[in-house]
């Protein structure tokens, strides 16, 4: 079996199943713990609280103006990375094709040049984020192996994707295999490390928004 056949075949089966099992396990393990009922009278009715939760998902994307001087640069760099990745993932023709072949939905792709530039910016931002993490005193102290493993596991798909798109260094089949394998590594790691924030960010913001709306407190 070639490396590519392995990547598209058994490895994809295993990675997807591990991703699904892991995500559902972790989420249900959290949400099924013993719940504490809040008995105090809420300031706002249920509908307002639900809306508060939903709105908080959106509003927490941008820090409050008062915090901008201290966190603005770091947040901006992180968004450059995330938005760049979003452009590549959802604007790049081969990724739209994957989604179409899986789910039957598609949309127009962005011009290849735009995606290439976005991928380069994404890579640069990712590297700068690592530099920041190892030099900033707070981040250096907080960081665990999870942070660095997660960085490598995100770096590899971006880097192999760029090589594949440029069809450089190795044959197309090899590059494609490496790109798919690196994504499978990401899928396998995702439920267990900080990459799970792709789901937890929604759950956490909603929960805080709901709880604070209950108190009429600022979200």
């Amino acid at each position, binding site marked *: 079996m070639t490396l590519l056949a392995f990547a598209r075949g058994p490895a994809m*089966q295993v990675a997807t199943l591990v991703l699904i099992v892991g995500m559902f396990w972790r*989420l*249900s393990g959290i949400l099924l713990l013993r719940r504490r009922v809040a008995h105090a009278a809420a300031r706002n009715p249920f509908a307002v609280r639900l809306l508060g939760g939903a709105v908080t998902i959106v509003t927490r994307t941008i820090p409050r103006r008062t915090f901008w001087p201290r966190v603005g640069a770091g947040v901006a760099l992180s968004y450059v990375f995330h938005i760049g990745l979003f452009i590549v993932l959802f604007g790049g023709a081969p*990724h739209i094709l994957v989604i179409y072949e*899986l789910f039957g939905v598609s949309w127009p792709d962005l011009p290849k040049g735009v995606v290439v530039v976005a991928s380069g910016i994404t890579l640069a931002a990712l590297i700068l984020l690592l530099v920041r993490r190892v030099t900033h005193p707070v981040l250096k102290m907080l960081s665990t192996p999870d942070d660095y493993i997660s960085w490598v596991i995100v770096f590899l798909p971006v880097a192999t994707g760029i090589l594949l798109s440029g069809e450089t260094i190795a044959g197309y089949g090899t590059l*494609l295999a490496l790109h798919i394998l690196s994504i499978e590594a990401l899928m396998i790691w995702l439920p267990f490390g900080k990459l799970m924030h792709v789901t937890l960010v929604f759950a956490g913001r909603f929960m805080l928004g709901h709880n604070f709306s209950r108190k009429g407190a600022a979200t």
Partner: protein
Amino acid sequence: MTAGDENLGEMLARRGFGRRGLLKFAFAMTASLALPPALAAAMAENLAAAKRQSVIWLSFQECTGCLETLLRTDSPTIAGLIFDFISLDYQEALMAASGSAAELTLRQAVAANKGKFLLAIDGSVPVADGGVYSLTGGKSNVSMLEEIAPDAAAILAIGTCAAYGGIPKAYPNPTGAVGVEDVITDKPIVNIPGCPPIPEVLSGVLVYFVSFGRLPDLDERKRPLAYFGTTIHDQCYRRPYYDQGKFAKSFDDEGARQGWCLFELGCKGPTTHNACASLKWNDGTSFPIESGHGCLGCSEPDFWDQEGGFYTSLAGGAGPGWRESGIAAAVGIAGGAAAAFAARRKTPEAQE
């Protein structure tokens, strides 16, 4: 039948091709074989002096498509004449003899050309259940191969079946089909894959062998680098559309009619090594992509079993289906619930 005394130069002269024609042919051949043009003169000389090359052709578990392709060359090109020049001393489909007369022919051909003949194989070699799934005169392919291969100068595995197992090897491979290289490991083998292979590729290999007395340079899959060193993608005339992101989304849509890239319709060009995009088929008439269908990857091993089939693009894989995914989700919830309920037992009933 043994190789005659007439050399190739004399035979060609008889048919009306002089030294000049042979030299022109040699130049074309060196280009096709990606050899330096300086070798053309040497090739022409060697060809002129070449004696008839004995070829013994064994057909195993095949559909006869490879043989048909090779015979269907239209015009009497020199390539075609070279086929005439080889002494095809044994070939079951073509020869007049059959039955025990055929077996005698084979034994005599092997004996007379021991150590010098080229053994051409088409079709896969079934090895399951003692090789019973493909027999000739009661003898299994695998035993014939093991008996005759030691006396060959080299083996040409013609077509993807002979090279890598081909369609019989597709899941679940009930006959235990394998390529020749999985049975014979101590003889030089040239794989000439393709389903079928391009005729000019075979003639190019023969010309090289007859000219220089050895096999051309091969890649790690034993394919002649001259023809299999690049992918369809590297030579495809639709490559600019790929680079511009212009893809046909379905057969006969606007993009398809404009001749746009067929990547999204499952074309395996980027991972398929062959000369289809440059040499093309039927003496350079066309090739699948030019006719509007994506490359199937037929010169690569296991192309019948590739993930998702012919119409799933290289970007897509299959992965587990919805049912398996649903089961996985249920397993995840069960595991998480078990962990949560084990944890619950650690927290007191009433919390302030």
